């Protein structure tokens, strides 16, 4: 146990050093991704055999990402915007190594903590504490590392008295607060957030806003959002994605304008 603890720490330090040495946190080069979409009912064994016999393919191919190239500098706050279905979430999932790209490459320098959705793996039957540790394990943190972050997470969520209650007894606001606190207090080199900013009441939102402002320059963040106010408030740079390609890139004010023009 001790040996592996040491080994793990060394690996992490090494990853960290590499991250330090490299100016870019993320390098994406010429990324392509398409999906097979089943036509009608290609699900199930019978249909699959039928389709093969008849020579029907049973699916159509949808190109979602077509040649995306960009870098994210260390400590940069990058916003990604675009209309529904333009490929933002697919891009995040490729960055998070959930999807394998068809073509192109993604290079991540450092550890990446993805929050494609808040509270993935949360179980209503477990206590708040158990859920925090489970969530941590799913994000790749050991129990020891979680011990170090636990108080911080709970304090930020303002849920100290409720951690030994089952999650099903939490209000939905409390649940997202907990999930959100894990998301932003988990110590990874790169943080990926998909549409998860607007949680909690006004006071909590204010606190999050302050926190995001304080992150500036210290944490690499990629934020996907439809709220142009947030893009201008937090981001150093933004990217507009349209039809799987980068349509506009640069200063947040420029990109939000281009975003609004999509509907003109």
């Amino acid at each position, binding site marked *: 146990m001790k040996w592996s603890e040491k080994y793990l720490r060394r690996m992490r330090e090494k990853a960290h050093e590499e991250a330090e040495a490299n100016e870019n946190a993320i390098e994406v080069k010429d990324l392509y991704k398409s999906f097979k979409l089943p036509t009608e009912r290609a699900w199930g*064994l019978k249909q699959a055999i039928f389709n093969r016999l008849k020579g029907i393919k049973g699916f159509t191919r949808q190109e979602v990402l077509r040649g995306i190239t960009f870098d994210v500098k260390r400590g940069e706050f990058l916003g990604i915007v675009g209309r529904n279905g333009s490929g933002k979430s697919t891009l995040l999932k490729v960055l*998070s190594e*959930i999807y394998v790209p068809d073509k192109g490459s993604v290079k991540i320098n450092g550890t990446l903590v*993805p929050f494609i959705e808040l509270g993935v*793996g949360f179980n209503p*039957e477990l206590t708040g504490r158990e859920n925090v540790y489970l969530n941590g*394990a799913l994000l790749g943190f050991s129990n020891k590392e979680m011990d170090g972050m636990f108080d911080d997470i709970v304090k930020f969520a303002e849920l100290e008295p409720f951690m030994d209650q089952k999650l099903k007894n939490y209000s939905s606001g409390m649940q997202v607060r907990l999930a959100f606190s894990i998301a932003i207090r988990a110590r990874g080199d790169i943080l990926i957030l998909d549409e998860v900013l607007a949680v909690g009441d006004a006071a909590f939102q204010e606190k999050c806003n302050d926190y995001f402002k304080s992150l500036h320059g210290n944490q690499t963040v990629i934020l996907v959002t439809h709220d142009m106010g947030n893009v201008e408030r937090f981001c150093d740079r933004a990217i507009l994605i349209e039809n799987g390609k980068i349509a506009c890139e640069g200063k947040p004010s420029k990109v939000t304008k281009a975003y609004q023009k999509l509907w003109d």
Partner: protein
Amino acid sequence: MGKTLFSKKNRVLLAELTKTDFKLRYQGSVLGYMWAVLKPLLMFAILYVVFAKVLRFGDSIPHYPVYLLVGTVLWNFFNECAQQGIHAIEQRGDLIRKLSFPKYIVVVSATSTAVINVLINLCVVIVFALINGVTPSLTWLLVLPLLAELYFLALGISLLLGAMNVKFRDIGSIWEVLMQAMFYAVPIIYPVSMVADNSVMAAKIMLLNPVAQVIQDMRYSLITHEAVTLTSLSGVVWEFVSIGIVAVVLVVGILYFRKKAKYFAEEV
């Protein structure tokens, strides 16, 4: 797979998922974990009344009740293991769609509850055996390797069929029917000698099924050396054929799973 299998990160996740599964399994029931022991015992009680008392199947076998118990415990283990394993990817789809981690962890954690259960159950078997007057012998040491063989078979099937089941949900149902049939094709409730009396060849083929081979070997090593095994029926070489089947299933399962795992997030 080999390298990541032992990485700390993956072991933590495996432990955490297993703990959660085990905790949630019996939540809200008064007897809790006791059900892990009670379920096979109750199934055993039913089989015992029907087959030992009413139909008198085991009159020729010493310690027949324990003999029956070993069969049901092992069968339950195999059944639960494969059942949970095959549906693991599909059931954990929420995680797989949104996080990146080695997918086999989900399958292994799903089967590990069954492993914990069978270890508890085997303790019960040993207590029963001692009460029944079975004398401990050196062959008891074979219990763990035999259990490992059965586990690897269930794991191989879980990986292979579980990966197929992501796309073709029929696989899960087909497997259930197969298991129903296999329950009668494996000497759990009846002694092998009943089959061998009619046709020695049939008994030989029956025992080539690794599930049957393990159950009979376990009975031999734990309870009575009179139990008919693959070795006593066909010769010890055939024992390796049966183990070979397990190895092939496991390797094919791992290779197929590895090939398909990349696309689980899109397909599940």
